[in-house]
């Protein structure tokens, strides 16, 4: 469902981009006071509904024109780097939060935004995603977001006389209690679900940035971090105790929906918007039956949530229209504009004044817990050479008995270092 919808958005974006380009080529008026603002981003990102809405709204309101530069996703980064290096960077550059900017000279290329008026309207979580390690706000978060954690079938759990866990120990107890009576506690398909272990890595590196630094500086490896081994050991034990069911090695992404909707599995590690885009309709259980608790992967006693990944709009410090770009960001940050853009879009709010988006009841109910235990996505975005697929491959090798916990950690390290060395 999510992929289909993404594809639909991509096609729509392409059409809109083409229309904008045609308009800009044909409708440019010489000597007119209106300007043309260039925005560079991935084609699939710029095609999102809320993006097209805000562009249209901006053009309508200002009479300015937004010129979309949307290379194919695969060519996006190389094209962006080339343009910035040649001094031809766009006015506004859309980038996936604050990670992986090492190919740019951040300080030289982009204008810090701490001084902007809209900063205080940002939610803490959203602001964290857009701030570098020195506290500089790099961009305006403007994206659909979600909260990742352990989503569980509350209806089913209630019927079983059980309740959600508040600690790792309770979670383990819950899993064991479920397994004892024939339920699959956690839906963990081995194929294509690389993010699950990632949730467990977040606390390790988010709670102790020095560990992340040492890892990226190659001073230490995963194997030197006991918590990483604890994480993998817990996953191995969970699989061995039957907490993933007996078919987890032969299931993948597409099986999560049916497994949860049927009630065969009680919990899974996923994000809230998934329930609106992918949960099978017509199943025994719907989104209303689910609730959210922290993800427990033996790396945080109280569990953890992973905050939503966000795209942010950055301003080219060296662009010809820096002020116009700042104005564009300010336009986007106005409540009436972002509420118009995100109206009806299921997402976690990035702005405190955001009201028209659809925020899931699951997230709302767990707001206090989320506020206390949410961590930014650290592993996937900050660990150099990290690949969810590599981690999944190492885990699968362990699941199949080809290696043990130690070997799995080594595989993770080897693949990470390999990717680092290969750029």
């Amino acid at each position, binding site marked *: 469902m999510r992929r289909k919808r993404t594809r639909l958005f991509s096609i729509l974006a392409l059409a809109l981009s083409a229309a904008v380009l045609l308009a800009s080529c044909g409708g440019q008026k010489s000597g007119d006071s209106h300007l043309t603002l260039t925005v560079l981003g991935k084609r699939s990102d710029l095609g999102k509904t809320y993006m097209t809405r805000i562009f249209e709204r901006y053009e309508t309101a200002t009479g300015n024109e937004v010129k979309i530069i949307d290379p194919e996703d695969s060519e996006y980064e190389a094209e962006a780097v080339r343009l910035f290096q040649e001094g031809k960077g766009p006015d506004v550059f859309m980038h996936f939060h604050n990670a992986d900017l090492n190919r740019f000279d951040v300080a030289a290329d982009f204008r810090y935004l701490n001084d902007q008026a809209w900063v205080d309207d940002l939610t803490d979580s959203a602001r964290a995603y857009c701030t570098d390690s020195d506290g500089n706000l790099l961009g305006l978060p403007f994206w659909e977001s979600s909260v990742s954690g352990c989503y569980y079938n509350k209806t089913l759990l209630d019927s079983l006389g059980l*309740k959600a866990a508040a600690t790792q120990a309770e979670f383990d*107890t819950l899993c064991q209690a479920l*397994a004892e009576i024939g339920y699959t506690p956690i839906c963990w398909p081995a194929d294509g679900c690389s993010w699950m272990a990632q949730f467990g890595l977040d606390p390790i590196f988010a709670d102790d940035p020095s560990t992340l630094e040492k890892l990226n500086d190659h001073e230490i490896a995963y194997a030197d971090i006991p918590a990483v081994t604890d994480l993998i050991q817990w996953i191995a034990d969970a699989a061995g105790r039957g907490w993933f069911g007996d078919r987890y090695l032969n299931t993948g992404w597409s099986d999560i929906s049916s497994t949860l909707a049927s009630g065969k599995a009680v919990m899974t590690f996923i994000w809230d918007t998934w329930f609106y885009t992918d949960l099978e309709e017509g199943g025994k259980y719907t989104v209303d039956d689910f609730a959210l608790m922290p993800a427990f992967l033996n790396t945080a006693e109280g569990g953890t949530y992973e905050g939503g990944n966000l795209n942010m709009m950055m301003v080219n410090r060296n662009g010809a229209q820096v002020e116009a770009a700042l104005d564009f960001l300010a336009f986007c940050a106005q409540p009436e504009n972002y509420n118009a853009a995100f109206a009806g879009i299921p997402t976690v709010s990035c702005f405190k004044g955001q009201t028209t988006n659809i925020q899931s009841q699951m997230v709302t109910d767990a707001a206090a817990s989320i506020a206390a235990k949410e961590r930014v996505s650290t592993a996937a975005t900050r660990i150099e050479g990290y690949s969810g697929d590599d981690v999944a491959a190492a885990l699968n090798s362990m699941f199949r008995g080809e290696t043990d916990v130690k070997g799995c950690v080594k595989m993770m390290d080897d693949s990470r270092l390999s990717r680092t060395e290969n750029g």
Partner: protein
Amino acid sequence: MKKRPVKLVAAALICAAAAAVAVIGTVYFRFISQRIYEDSTGHLQEIYGQVNRAFGAFVERNWGLLRDWEDCLARGEDGEAAAFLEEERDYWGFSKFYLLAGDGSCMTLDGDRGTMALEGVREDLARGGRVMAGETQPDGQEVTVFAAPASPGNYRGFAYEAVAVSYTNADLVDSLKVDAFSGKARCFIIGSDGKVLLSTQTGGNVFADYLAYLRAASDLDGAELAALQSDWERGASGLLQCRIGGENCCILYQPVGYQGYILLSAVPQSAVSAGFLSVQHTTIYGLAAIFLLVGTVVVTLLILRSRSQFRRSRTELEYRELMFDVLSNNVDDIFLMLDKERERAEYVSPNIERLLGVPVEEARREIRVMEKCAVDYDVVIPKSELDAIPLGGNMYRECEYMHQTTGERRWYRMTVYRMSIRQVEKFIVVLSDRTLERQMNQKLQEALDAARSANEAKSNFLSNMSHDIRTPMNAIVGFAVLLEKDADRPDRVREHARKITASSRHLLSLINDVLDMSKIESGKTSLNVERFSLPELMEELNIILLPQARAREQSFTVRVEGTPPEYLMGDKLRLNQILINLLSNAIKYTPEGGNIQFLVEELPQSAPQYAKLRFTVRDDGIGMSEEYQKQIFVPFSREINSVTNKIQGTGLGMAITKNLVDLMGGVIQVESAPGQGSTFTVELSFALPEQDAAGEEPRAGAAPGADAGDVMRGRLFLVAEDNELNAEILTELLDMEGARCEVAADGRQALELFQHSEPGHYDMIFMDVQMPVMNGYEAARAIRACDHPEAKTIPIVAMTANTFAEDVKSALDAGMDGHLAKPIDMAAVRETVGRLLGRGEQ
């Protein structure tokens, strides 16, 4: 066969015993299990009764403490009360002390204000009841609150109507935990509706509603669950069993005694009975071990016994087999045992290799290899024929085998027995060697045939001899009678005397041939090899046979082809005899006017010191039938037809000829057909003399044409002859020749007469051989050895009936100079005297 029922009975008894043990064991263990269950659940109830009582005491103590502390609050200053309660908290272990207002608000002694839900029990508290309730604190911590109404008061400005203490659930559950049941017991404090207040669940409580849990996770049905809920609502105790998650569990519940709370323990049955089960299992394992040990000992003993018997049987079997192998190796009988179904040899006696040349292992692998040894494939018995042998029966046949390597043939009597050994049918084949018996029988048969043949030959011989002797004897006797009758008629007397003489000569030749034949056949004939002249031999033959041929008006031609050697080494006398026999027969069986050819030719000879000659005698006479040609060399065989019946013969000539040719290493062949004549060829090899004596004059002999009467006339002979009649005949015959003689009765007298005679007194000595006192040989040697001047020179000639060549040789060896056979042939006497005395005179 009688053992089978015994075995069946034994097996049945063993099965029955095993079944009885199993039944008794099952009943016993069921009984034990029931007792164990009863004891263990009793144990469970006792333990949790104590836990419940302890928890009740704990609750009761809190009520009491709250009452005391309320008084303290009412009487003391706020600060003093706070300090006191701080000490009490440290002592009793509660987490917080609360002051409760009627609106649900609360305050701690530290002045922290908040609310306390006291869900479901607030009204009870308002009504003056003491309550116990669960609360979740803002930090998420779950606590249990004990609250009791109090006299309205004020603490730090907070008006309260009740007081309460809270304990963290984590602390409280320690009082509910028991060490028994291997840590597998779960204990809960639940409301009468099943809602969980406290749980001893390791790691934290995840149970919210135990009734719902049982509904979802256990095998209890609706009625059972309703009854359970009813019990809880009524505050009743109970114990039930159910399955949760595939495991049997004991659910024990009993009221705490406050607000309908229930103390519920859920323990896996395996844990409840673990201790007892351990005893039970130990008992089971112990008994099983005893049974196993006993069984092992019994089985071991049986196996050892069986092995011992097996070893004994095997040793005995090996001994028997070894003995049988040794036995069979020392006999010429072959033994086989074949499996009827598999058609393969299970036993092959090792002597098969010695007797038939078939390796034992090869025969054991494939018994059909023996078929290769069969001389006649009829000995291979078809399977159908084998199958036809009745069980216990046998069949036999004679067969002949050939040794695979030496080709030696052996005869066997094959006997096949069909037997059953332990229900498995076998063929036991005994090849009994009959070779010696067969060979003996053959020899006996041959001997019998030979004896029959000899007997037949003897009969034939006697018959022939009777006929052939009687025929000339008839003439001699008849003409002797006529001679007497016609004594006065000289012409008739001469005619009768001539016929008597002819018949006598025939009779004599018959006797000579018979004796000669007998000598040859007895193997006593030896050749007297000496140098002789072939031309001379040819001339002598011509002289002898030409007159006979002429007498029958036959042409007799002698031809020599090639250049045969003049002198040869051989027995001239026997060669002469062979050729005369052949030529005489040719003349005899060729009608008058026929042609006789005698051809001598030299054949190629590889060795230079030898000469090979072929003598061919061809005639155009009456010839012979093919049947007769096959037995022409058989003694006394004569073809019977109208012609031969008129021809006189002994039937021994060709047999003697054949034997002489064989004796000389030659070959004789005959080609003939009735009416078309016959051709005899004799091929003989002769050694050549070392020095060719060509040109040497032949030794002096009787000069052909010499006047015999002159030789004999006036001679004086010393005659040693023991037979007076013979002496008289010789005296008369010599007298007829104009000679005289002096007769000695034995050899000694002859010796003495000679020794005492004057030199020149005797011209020659005729010495009989077989004489009394001193035989002729001894006398001759004595004469040669005596000191008479003529001892070495006087001619001594044997005159004896011992006429064989050996006799001639013996005479010469004894120092005699010649040999004359009896009856006395005066022509031969004249020729010998002429040769000996003529030579001496020359």
